[in-house]
């Protein structure tokens, strides 16, 4: 019994750099955050901030060289491939790019059945589960026999979500799952994420560069910059009244879709930049 589902403690990820005796590249410099069951934790940052790397570290796809990744009381940071396979029922993933995250030569049914057969679910039951999953993500049952290329970006992302849900995991790492989608599709897919969470109690680690998206979905938000978390706390607090200067800059940099208010926000951003420049000069 644990309050916390996932607990990252001082996680360090280093990638070796090509060349003789070059120092490795530190993608994460000791990152700590926790996720409770049924909670969405948003992870915001710009490219190179390490937000995707943290997600991959949780999934076992990035080399953790320091710290702990504790899932349900056990450190899974250094699990080998066989141990990882056992985790598949608990931790799943939805990637950013719905075009390359589905094998183009497999039908939707084959894609969705795959994780089930690994867990030795009988074929008849697996097939029934597939219809059920398609229904859950709002796709017609006849989608099962078709190939990924017959679907639009938003529909493919629904298929990827169905695959993640197949094993009824307790945590899904969502790596920019709506960034490649059009505005109206994005809103519907986010709604789906929310609805699934309310129904199944799954927790999300939701990685995105878009503050508005993260704010909409996250209970708590962490802001990353250069491999570190610079601000971490209640979602509304972090996204509406940021304290750290970087978060403030990030917040003011995103243009508001309203010409009147954007003019105000732009002025605020310029003022922030000017004060920064003064600080530097002083």
């Amino acid at each position, binding site marked *: *019994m644990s309050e916390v589902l996932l607990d990252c403690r001082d996680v360090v990820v280093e990638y070796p750099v090509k060349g003789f005796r070059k120092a490795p590249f530190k993608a994460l410099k000791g990152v700590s955050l926790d996720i*409770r*069951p*049924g*909670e*969405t934790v948003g992870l915001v940052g710009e*490219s190179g901030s390490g937000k995707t790397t943290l997600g991959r570290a949780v*999934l*076992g*796809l990035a080399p953790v060289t320091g710290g702990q990744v504790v899932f349900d009381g056990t450190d899974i940071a250094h699990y080998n491939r066989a141990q*990882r*396979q056992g985790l*598949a*029922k608990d931790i*799943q*993933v939805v*990637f950013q*790019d719905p075009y*390359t*995250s589905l*094998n183009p*030569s*497999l039908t939707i049914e084959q894609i969705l059945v*795959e*994780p089930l057969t*690994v*867990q030795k679910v009988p074929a008849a039951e697996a097939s029934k589960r597939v219809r059920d999953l398609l229904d859950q993500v709002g796709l017609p049952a006849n989608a099962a026999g078709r190939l990924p*290329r*017959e679907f639009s970006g938003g529909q493919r992302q629904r298929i990827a979500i169905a695959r993640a849900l197949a094993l009824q995991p307790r945590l899904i790492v969502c790596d920019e799952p709506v960034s490649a989608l*059009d*505005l*109206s*599709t994005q*809103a519907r897919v*986010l709604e789906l994420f929310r609805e699934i969470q309310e129904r199944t*109690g799954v927790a999300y680690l939701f990685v995105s*560069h878009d503050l*508005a998206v993260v*704010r*909409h979905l*996250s*209970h*708590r938000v962490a802001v990353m910059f250069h491999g570190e978390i610079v601000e971490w706390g*209640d*979602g*509304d607090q972090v*996204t*509406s009244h940021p304290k750290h200067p970087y978060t403030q800059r*990030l917040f*003011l*940099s995103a*243009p*508001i*879709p*309203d*010409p*009147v208010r*954007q003019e105000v926000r*732009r002025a605020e*951003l310029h003022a922030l930049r000017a004060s920064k420049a003064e600080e530097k000069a002083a």
Partner: protein
Amino acid sequence: MSESNLFRRMLRNPLAVAAMVWLGLLILSSAFAGVLAPGDPNAGSVQNVLAPPGPGFPLGADSAGRDILGRLLHAGQFSLAAPVVTLTVAVLIGVTGGLIAGYFGGWFDTVSSWVAGVVMAMPGIIVLLAARAAIGPSMWLSMAIFGVLIAPGFFRLVYAAVTAVRNELYVDAARVSGLSDTRIISRHILTVVRAPVIIQAAMVFGIAIAIQAGLEFLGLGDMTLPTWGGILNDGFANLYTAPMLMLWPSLIIGLTCIALTVLGNAMRDELERAGGVPKKKGQAVDIVREHIFAHPEDPAAQLGEELLRVSDLRVGYDQRDGSVKQVVNDVSLTVRRGEVHGLIGESGSGKTQTAFAVMRLLPEGGRIVGGRVDFEGRDLALASEAEMVKIRGRKIAYIPQEPMSNLDPSFTIGTQLVEPMKIKLGLSSADAKKRALELLARVGIPNPERTFKAYPHEVSGGMAQRVLIAGAISCKPDLLIADEPTTALDVTVQAEVLDLMRELQKELNMGVILVTHNFGVVADLCDRVSVMRDGRIVETGPVRPIFAGPQHEYTQSLFDAILEDAPARGELVTTQKGAGA
């Protein structure tokens, strides 16, 4: 794509069918050689030496008085079996090695790549001759050795395919799903390498037949077995007395090799064609002209002179069946001097197509099929390519979406800025360099000298976009077309680039067409906006009234999807229900 599907489509290619028929006949006749030509193919008689075609000898007899046809049929068994040995060895070694090295990498990768390089560097025919000298005339063994020599071809092919697919997200997803490595390889990786391996196999089979025949022809094979090469050898020895003896084996060897090559090429063509996008079945374009909501001008606004007027523009793409698929329908818009006109829409709305049509830079197959593009007193829709070359870059400049892919990685940034200025403005090299440095400083690059000398990969995406903006404004254009100029950038960099574009636009008093999908960018930069859907403008007008009160239901739905003002999720409410977990 499934194999049966490939086979069915191959049947539509007459050359491939001919090749398959020939190979099929060859295999069948060789398999039933004992029935078709009973008797020992090696048994000859002295009376029949070099007998001409006649009863009992449909194609004549050879120098030992043996029936040529019978020998050819029996020889097929060996001449076709020998390449099978080569192919099996090559595929086993090459494909397995390539899969392991490509998928797991590490030391095996290093060692096997090195070994493959060494084997490739070895002169094949000399190795085969040496092997024969060492182990004697065994056809099977020399063909197996040839298989080893040709294995690096498969190794390289599979290795390249596997490394390309290893980092695909669906492979990562499979790993997260708990699939074992063997399962991932058999299910996700083998399907990718299957097609190229089959094609390569057809080619290698042809080569192996030719090599085997060559060895036999040189007299280096096993003379106790009937083979096509051996028959050829005998024919060559009697070239002057019985010239026809050479014809039949040469014909069979030649036709078989051609058939295999044709088959391999046909398979490749079909598989490559399958990679294309599936044709959308006749997207019904509604003929009815939708009502366009045009918001009135603000009477207080100071409008500049009209720079560009697009009227009833239609853009179409030629289809394979001869029809034209229209992607832009009756689009009309104006851009005034000093005005930023935003084109906003979702993917496939035709916003980029409209912008490219103005520059007459539509991709292959696309063209303006109707309407006018009036710019500085002429219709660009009818302008010649030579006229457009004069206008593009000088009067109309362009900023792309992907800054990195629009800079040539093999030239320094300086060269790429200086060259167009020398051509378009006729500046000397020294003047052009001076101007380029001024421009780099103007677009906010901290150290212009260093960036001037740098290669594109040495600068960040935001810097690269600044460089492209510097290039675009270098000729002081009247009209700037920016296609999602900040989409690929981080949000803090986006804010800086938007500021830069605003300043430059004011400074040079340019008209700007800004293509974007982001309402925030429109709100930040645009004076006027046109909302596009399915190749049409559905709503247009000055920015403020549209944001204050969108009229078209599509625009309204887009505004509804914006999350900026949506409430935050709030704190996690822990219910008692899930507490037992």
